């Protein structure tokens, strides 16, 4: 199926499940990867990604093609993840902690997923929402019910840690597929 995402979404908005299935095949991995990068365990990430796609199908008529379809579903998924996690007291406590998992040494390879593990849960979530889901700082503050200043400092500290960790090099190309 060679149709553009916007055309597929238009068909899906008219009830086309086959066309929507194609969109899921194209962007499913991107949405799942973002949720994992936000800190979700793989099974929870898949569960929320499925919910996000189901919601996207129901709201397909709202997608006008201003941004990419993947970005649109990522934002739906990110909001679903925050909502789901807000109900989990253990996770909320975890978000307030300053502990990060020890990162493995990959001998200078640029590995975002590994580098993200060096961030605290709150930094990881805020950086991923900002740079992965394309949400603005005020949007993140509103979705997470946090002061804007707190969000900005989580993003800044997270980026500082990532910058210290990540070194762009030849390993960047070829390790993964660019889906968008």
């Amino acid at each position, binding site marked *: 199926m060679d149709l553009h995402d916007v055309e597929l979404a238009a068909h899906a908005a008219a009830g086309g499940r086959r066309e929507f299935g194609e969109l899921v095949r194209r962007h*499913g991995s991107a949405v799942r990867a973002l949720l994992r990068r936000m800190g979700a365990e793989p099974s929870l990430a898949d569960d929320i990604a499925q919910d996000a796609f189901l919601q996207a199908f129901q709201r397909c008529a709202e997608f006008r093609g201003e941004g990419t379809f993947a970005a649109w579903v990522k934002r739906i998924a990110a909001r679903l993840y925050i909502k789901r996690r807000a109900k989990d007291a253990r996770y909320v406590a975890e978000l307030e902690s300053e502990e990060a998992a020890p990162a493995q040494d990959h001998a200078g390879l640029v590995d975002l997923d590994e580098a993200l593990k060096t961030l605290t849960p709150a930094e990881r979530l805020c950086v991923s929402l900002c740079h992965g889901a394309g949400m603005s700082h005020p949007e993140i503050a509103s979705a997470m019910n946090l002061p804007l200043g707190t969000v900005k400092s989580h993003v800044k500290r997270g980026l500082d840690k990532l910058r210290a960790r990540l070194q762009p090099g030849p390993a960047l190309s070829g390790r993964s597929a660019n889906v968008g």
Partner: protein
Amino acid sequence: MSADDFDPFIERLYSRTPVMQDAGLFAADVETRLNSASRIRTLALTAAGLIGGVVAVGGAVDLNLNLSSDAGASSAQLGQGFTASIAAAQLSAQGVADRIGLTQLDLGSMGGMQLFWITAGAVLALLAAGAVRLSQEV
């Protein structure tokens, strides 16, 4: 690398998606959930339509089929406006029947309530069919 250079760099990294071996399985799961949600909706609406139809038919059967002969009793039970609307519906239906040549069909012999329940049943069935159709398109 400066902060200004790093922001686009990190965004590029986020846009690179790891290849997931079970991507096909994930898409199939979404499709299954999509189909099952649609099936449940169709079943619920069909059940609602059927229940509505059964109630309507039950109401029609319970009534005396010759209500038109004792319209006075009906009038006593029903509100004045309601009776008038039934009579008007009967008249207009009779007019339509005359126009399309169904003169042998004597709607006057039908009870007001019977006509009401039959109409209600038909409307419910139509609504249920419309809702099912709409749900399939959404």
